[in-house]
């Protein structure tokens, strides 16, 4: 693996990396050996962090106490709100009823499944604290939990979240990545779903067009548990959203859906890997990317089905809609299968809006803009069916409508 020349940003990080404990110090060494990933590294061809950060001179982000009110219309949902503002975790006292433990905890120091991932290593070195949430056995928490990641002003910040749903627990979380200003933000989310647990996770990424953002969700999904995730991203200067799911036991399910709406020069990269180890697990993955202007939509999805994962049923689809000649889309679906009794499929399409459909709709009286908006909305809408909570799909639709109006 080639190491690109160190950049100014790395010396600011090195200054921050004084007096780390042994584990973090090792993680920082691992980062230093590799540097930020660049286009010559497998899996990073279309998301070159090294060159995106080359001319930046970020220092540590300032401490912000006050967060602006949530700019997302959650359509009347009454959520519990937790915040991570410029990497600083802000949790109100008594936010939750009995059965839910939460608070600021020490960040994890190892990332066994993400070796050779230099940004993950950097996060382990830099993030000292984590937002911890544990939902006790059998507790079904109906109110959505909102976790807002807010990055204001210039500067770098790192944070982690640790969440565990014990046997049979159920919860819904809504995460937002927001903020204004050129920032670098790295977030690592460790999730464990014990036997029969279910988590619905809705993620809205609407960061500043000058920001560079990297997020990882690493989910360990145990027997019969369900993990449902729907994400909507409007991109950033460089935004990469990674999802790593490990099915470690039998009969678990995951639905992973994502949509990217990209204008200007915004970039969004949804990269994922689902590792099937247990028997009879089911994965449904769907990505929809819409790019106009010089927007860039990237999707890399991989299913790995190991020898013991017989009867796996896994399907992946990635579709891109390009609204201008200068918009770009790169989709790479991959299957790696070692079991012989499985059903796996993937497909990928890319195209423009259907001119015949637009004419039909205009003949019925819709303006060209209205017809195009309706078709774009229809293209991405199926992504939001994944989350069962009423109102969240509506929140997504509001966001899509807002993007369509901003043309």
């Amino acid at each position, binding site marked *: 693996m080639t190491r690109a020349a160190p950049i100014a940003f790395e010396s600011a990080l090195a200054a921050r990396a004084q007096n780390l404990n042994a584990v973090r110090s090792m993680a920082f060494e691992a980062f230093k050996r590799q540097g930020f990933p660049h286009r010559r590294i497998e899996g990073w061809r279309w998301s070159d962090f090294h060159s995106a950060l080359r001319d930046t001179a970020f220092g540590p982000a300032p401490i912000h106490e006050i967060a602006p009110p949530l700019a997302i219309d959650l359509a009347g949902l009454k959520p519990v709100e937790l915040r991570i503002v410029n990497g600083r975790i802000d949790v109100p006292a008594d936010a939750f009823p009995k059965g839910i433990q939460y608070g600021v905890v020490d960040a994890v120091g190892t990332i066994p499944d993400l070796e050779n991932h230099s940004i993950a290593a950097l996060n382990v070195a830099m993030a000292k604290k984590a937002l911890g949430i544990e939902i006790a056995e059998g507790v079904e928490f109906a109110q959505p939990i909102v976790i807002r990641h807010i990055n204001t002003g210039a500067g770098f910040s790192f944070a982690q979240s640790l969440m565990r749903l014990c046997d049979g627990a159920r919860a819904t979380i809504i995460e937002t990545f927001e903020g204004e200003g050129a920032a670098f933000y790295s977030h690592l989310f460790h999730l464990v779903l014990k036997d029969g647990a279910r988590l619905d996770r809705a993620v809205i990424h609407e960061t500043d067009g000058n920001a560079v953002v990297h997020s990882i969700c690493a989910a360990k999904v145990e027997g019969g548990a369900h993990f449902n995730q729907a994400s909507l991203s409007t991109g950033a200067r460089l935004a990469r959203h990674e999802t790593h799911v490990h099915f470690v036991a039998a009969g678990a399910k995951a639905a992973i859906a994502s949509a990217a709406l990209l204008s200007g020069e915004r970039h969004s990269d949804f990269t994922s890997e689902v590792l099937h180890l247990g028997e009879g697990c089911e994965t449904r993955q769907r990505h929809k990317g819409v790019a106009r202007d010089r927007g860039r939509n990237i999707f890399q999805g991989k299913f790995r089905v190991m020898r013991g994962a017989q009867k796996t049923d896994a399907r992946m689809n990635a579709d891109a809609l390009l609204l201008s000649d200068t918009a770009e889309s790169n989709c790479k679906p991959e299957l790696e299968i070692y079991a012989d009794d499985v059903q796996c499929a993937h497909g990928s399409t890319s195209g423009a809006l259907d001119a*015949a*459909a637009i004419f*039909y709709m205009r*003949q*019925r009286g*819709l303006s060209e803009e209205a017809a195009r908006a309706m*078709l774009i909305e*229809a*293209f991405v809408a*199926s992504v939001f069916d994944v989350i069962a909570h009423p109102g969240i799909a509506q929140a997504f639709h509001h966001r899509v409508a807002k993007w369509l109006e901003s043309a």
Partner: protein
Amino acid sequence: MLRIDNLHVSVGGHEILKGLTLDVPAGEVHAIMGPNGSGKSTLSYAVAGRENYDVTAGAVSLSGENILGLNPNERAAKGLFLSFQHPMEIPGVATMNFIRTALNAQKKARGEAEVSAADFLKLIRAKAKIVGLTDEKLKRPFNVGFSGGEKKRMEMLQMAIFEPRFAIMDETDSGLDIDALKMVGEVVNSLRGQKGDKTARGFLVITHYQRLLDYLKPDRVHVLAGGRIAKSGGPELAVELEQSGYDKFIEAA
């Protein structure tokens, strides 16, 4: 009502219509018959304003107003409706939302009050009953998974709801059984009105077969061949064509 004068239309640099002249007064139904490739669908698309159907000469007016400078949705708002030969499937677009949005866009363009969600529901349910579409079909994405006949019923549903001043029906009869043809006749006759009446509507029906005309009772029948109207006559012309074919018109053109 719809007056077409010396219309020349090119598609991709090829001239398809070569001086077509036609006048359909309010309250009348005219039929256009003609061999494949004679320009029947080109005529419908050019009048509706589809891109790449270039009008190189001639005029088209609706109730005396030139419509050639208008875009497709402006023509729709003026009351021009096209029942498509091959209606689109539009995945992900909810049928009722689409039709209501389109209806209100037309009304807004005409300066009329929009229809409320409740009133629209009543309207679409009543019209769906007439054209033979179930509630279940209305809840699907637009035309998705519909048979050819169901798509034509969906065209008639929209015509019944929009109540256009002038409709071009491009092979609406293809894919329809006898009962459905009767339904098309009912929808057209309910909208048609009396000749000479200000609220009367006009229809231009493109077809290959006499059987739809049994229900529509056209006032005039025209033969389109070689990009022009080769012959016009009364309803008896359609019967004659069905017996003897288009051969003599192709030669004449």
